[in-house]
């Protein structure tokens, strides 16, 4: 796995260096795809995650179960991030309470996806192991923001390939929560608690890290200048 991580020197100029050393184990297609999505986000920016995921699915001809297993892998990562890493880092204050709530919601997403995959007659993918490079509250919060935004972009890239109306509705009800997490993430909560510049938070609030009025760069019309 460590052959996938890149050196400090190689991190210079990355769009999202926080993602550079996130590791996802496993040789399932879902794990491969998640590594690709994270790499696209790290190197080219979160706007690249949506086209990467939609293309990767188009190539593998992924059916609904495969898409759900990809989503499950992503939710496993997010769930571990809040529920395992969050505890390990020892979050404080608002960040702690948000991380708890978000962690419970990610765990609910995991359960719902497993149930849906089984209902479709599929086999839920095994949980990979993750390396999540966060050692302090601030690095945790920085990573939280990019991970949630990666999640939104990944779902938005995968959803148009979903065949079943019911599965699409389920994925939609999850991605909306990811977008809410991404927007008012634990990072923002902590920033506000610390009296950080809300102007900056507000500016991020306009667009999220994808930076536009729509979350899919491929569909994005030119931004109106402000």
């Amino acid at each position, binding site marked *: 796995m460590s052959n996938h991580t890149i050196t400090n020197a190689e991190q210079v100029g990355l769009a999202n260096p926080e993602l550079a050393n996130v590791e996802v184990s496993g040789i399932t297609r879902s794990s491969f795809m998640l590594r690709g999505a994270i790499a696209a986000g790290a190197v080219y920016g979160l*706007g690249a995650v949506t086209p990467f995921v939609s293309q990767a699915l188009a190539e593998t001809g992924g059916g609904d179960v495969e898409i759900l297993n990809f989503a499950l892998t992503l939710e496993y990562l997010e769930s571990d991030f809040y529920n395992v890493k969050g505890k390990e880092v020892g979050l404080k204050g608002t960040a702690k309470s948000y991380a708890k709530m978000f962690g419970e919601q990610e765990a609910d997403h995991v359960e719902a996806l497993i149930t849906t995959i089984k209902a479709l007659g599929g086999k839920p993918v095994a949980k990979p192991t993750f390396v999540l490079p966060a050692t302090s509250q601030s690095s945790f919060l920085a990573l939280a923001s990019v991970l949630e935004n990666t999640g939104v972009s990944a779902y938005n890239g995968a959803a148009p390939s979903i065949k079943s109306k019911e599965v699409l509705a389920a994925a939609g009800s999850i991605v909306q929560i990811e977008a809410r997490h991404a927007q008012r993430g634990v990072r923002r909560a902590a920033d506000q608690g610390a009296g950080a510049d809300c102007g900056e938070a507000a500016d991020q609030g306009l*667009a999220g890290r994808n930076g536009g009025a729509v979350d899919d760069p491929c569909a994005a019309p030119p931004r109106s200048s402000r």
Partner: protein
Amino acid sequence: MSSPTSEDSAPQPAGIVERLMRDDVDRKRFLKMAGGAGAASFGAFVLAACGSSSTKTASTAAAPAATTSSASSATGDIAILNYALTLEYLEREFYAKVVASGLFSGKVGSLIKGFGSQEATHVEALKGAVSKMGGTPAANPNGKFPITSATQVAGLAYTVENLGASAYLGQAGNIQSPEVLATALAIHSVEARHAATLGTLVKKSLTPDGAFAKPADMSMVLAAVKPFLA
């Protein structure tokens, strides 16, 4: 606190394409991190990213075939897009009136202004999508909104954005065209972001429905917005 800088410099779509084409260092880093999947998907990924600017041409060319085979699904998608457009017109007008009211200044003021300009972008995107499908964009309705105090307006904005997010979610399964779906989903998550931001502002839940967002169907949403139609 170094990440805001990287946020500001996050590449825009055009930038991604350029970097994909030119930057060998980035390509190597991407392939190293992504491993096998990245290598396998990279060619198609480049094509997808590069193709995004010419999507319009490609899909226009493909449109006639699609329309003849599924005229009814196109009609359905156009109706959904026009429904979304109507909601976005109202949101745009709402924010414009809020901005004009001068109730908000400073950081929250610029936040509200920004939301308004994103709703305006959504209006344009949806009009474009309707026209591309061969439909006629819905007319801009006249709205009327109670605007009395900053607290009341922020509360209303929170309600409106949550309604918008649930309206998009309610239509996701009804949309036939993957391209229209991608557009709707891209707007959907931004409505959710607005709702979450406003939730913090008015000290209400970021996730009022819990771990799973609830959809709203068209009749429910239209009933909810009726009081705002002049």
